[in-house]
């Protein structure tokens, strides 16, 4: 549980610190005209304008997903320690290729976001298309990696190491598929001729979410490689 506790501690420290900065020396019982009731974080206790609801929503979702993976990784490490039957499975070389795909996907979406910001429709379309394409390649590649492992006799039920490999990659892929649904919607709107400015928020969320999932995959991959 150490991993999870560290994660929760970090979350709570950030959150607590933020709340602290809002409440320290505040004397809530004092009334004040709206505009002078300011706090260190910005006027009226509102967040700065860049912090939009969808972005905060994404941040919260990312926190939830991180909690989910932190717990799964904790379970992984604990199961490794508790049982005495752990047999590490070989990491298919294909995973390196898949990782490259996901990196490219993430870069492409970043490119699309930049395009949307600049109003550059061509890089928006291209980035969006490539980003999704690479991601689909990644998901298919993960499926192929499963097949390779199965073919090599590393069945799900055989060993907890195998089961965790399938569980972790499947959970990660599931999150990507969720992202792909949002991506498909955005692409559809772009194809229907939506202006770059109109899809900017969506593309931005996709790009940020993809970066998160890339980071997550790197952590998972490192874990699978090292244990």
């Amino acid at each position, binding site marked *: 549980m150490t991993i999870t506790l560290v994660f929760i501690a970090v979350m709570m420290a950030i959150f607590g610190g933020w709340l602290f900065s809002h409440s320290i020396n505040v*004397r*809530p*019982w004092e009334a004040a005209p709206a505009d002078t009731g300011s706090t260190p974080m910005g006027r009226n206790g509102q967040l700065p304008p860049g912090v939009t609801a969808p972005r905060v929503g994404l941040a919260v979702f990312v926190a939830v997903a991180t909690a989910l993976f932190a717990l799964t990784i904790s379970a992984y490490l604990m199961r490794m320690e508790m*049982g005495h039957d752990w047999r590490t499975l070989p990491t298919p070389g294909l995973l390196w290729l898949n990782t490259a795909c996901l990196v490219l996907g993430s870069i492409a979406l970043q490119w699309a976001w930049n395009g949307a910001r600049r109003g550059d429709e061509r890089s928006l379309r291209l980035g969006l298309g490539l980003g999704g394409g690479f991601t689909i390649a990644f998901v298919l590649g993960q499926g192929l990696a499963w097949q390779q492992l199965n073919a090599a006799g590393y069945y799900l039920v055989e060993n907890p190491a195998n089961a965790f490999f399938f569980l972790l990659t499947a959970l990660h892929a599931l999150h990507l598929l969720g992202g792909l649904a949002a991506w498909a919607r955005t692409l559809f709107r772009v194809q229907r001729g939506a202006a770059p400015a109109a899809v900017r928020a969506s593309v931005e969320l996709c790009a940020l979410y993809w970066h998160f999932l890339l980071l997550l995959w790197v952590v998972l991959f490192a874990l699978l490689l090292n244990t």
Partner: protein
Amino acid sequence: MVMVLVVIVLTLGSVLFYVLSPWNLTPLASNWGAIDTTMHTTAWVTGAVFVAVNLFLAYVIFRYRFNRHRRSHYEPESKKLEAWLTGLTAVGIAALLAPGLVVWGSFVSPPEDAHEVEVVGQQWHWSYRFPGEDGRFGAVHNRYITDDNPFGMIDDPAGQDDILVESPRLLLPVDRPVKFLLRSKDVLHNFKVANFRAKMDMLPGQVSYFWITPTRLGEYEIVCAQLCGIAHFAMRGTVEVVEEEVFEEWLASQPTYAELAAREPPDREAGQEHYAACVACHGAQGEGNPAVNAPRLSGLADWYLERQLMLFREGARGTHEADTYGQQMRPFATMLPDRAAVTDVAAYIAELPETEVETTLSGDARRGERLYRTCASCHGSQGQGIKATNAPRLAGMPDWYLARQLELFREGVRGRHERDPYGNQMIDMVQMLVNEKAIHDVVAYIMTLPRSEQTLAAANPGGGEE
């Protein structure tokens, strides 16, 4: 002001209830008086806080009841008051925690000279293992458990002299620290003796422990305190705290693993000779005879027959005055010369060919099917009997006999004897059959289960051998 009165009455009433309640801790029978002391300390501290807070609450409700001519006092906070309250609470909490942790310190460290007993839990039965002369337990693993190796012993020299106690009755010497090593064959269980205070879960695949020193002679009940399935509530045992000599004598009379493994196979021919005395009532083929109230014997497993014959011999069955036919059976069982004879005759009967029985009672088999769900947990979904759960075969037994026995269990005529733990269990389980109709229904359903040996053999391989 009703509320004021109610708060006062409830507060004082609760305290009074605590003081006067006849439902309190069971008499202590182990060294864990310290646990009781911490509990009492907690009671005093929490009780004081409970009374103080609630009486103050009652006072406040009374003193500051609504008055349209008065206004509330305006005071957003009082740092001083809050600091005091926080500080006092923290001190109180520390005062509760510190002794608790000290006692826990001794709870987790068994004394060096503690002797060890392994407790094995299974659905829904206890058994025990002692390390034998070498003082070491042989290696075990759940994967090695079979009907013939219920402890899952691995071929290990250290295990040869391990003493195996298969019945849920345990003896412990008084005033000698004992460390319980706990494991489970299947789901989670919890070895609890209320009088000992200490308890711990038992898990499959790992060994947990706790220790006590029994301090009072007497017999105490073991119950399971972790949900383990349908018969959780009927998973009982007894532990008897005795003088050292009595314990040693008892322990010496229990078989070791090596002795059990070296046991001679039963002599069926001798069994056949002994069976001659049974023929008059139970029939030459063990087909039974309803006219003389003798049930069918063929098809029953040797371990079950042996156990019941032993119960009859020991006076644990067939001694209750309301058990007329059991009383008739008893002299015949005592006629057998020794335990070997019992084993032999049981082995002979188990080999007899099965015979058909006739339906004599009527009941609603469909209602019975629902009721039988509970029975299936031990006796098997086909009523084939499962040795691992100590449950005899039901399918193929005559309905009048089943109904009568269920009735006897329900009335506590059969199965109440302390030497008959599985009978005890049936008394608990049979409470779910609330009336005669329920008994007839479930028996009617049992009569619909496959009665032929082939089907049963498929469902219960190796069921007839020990």
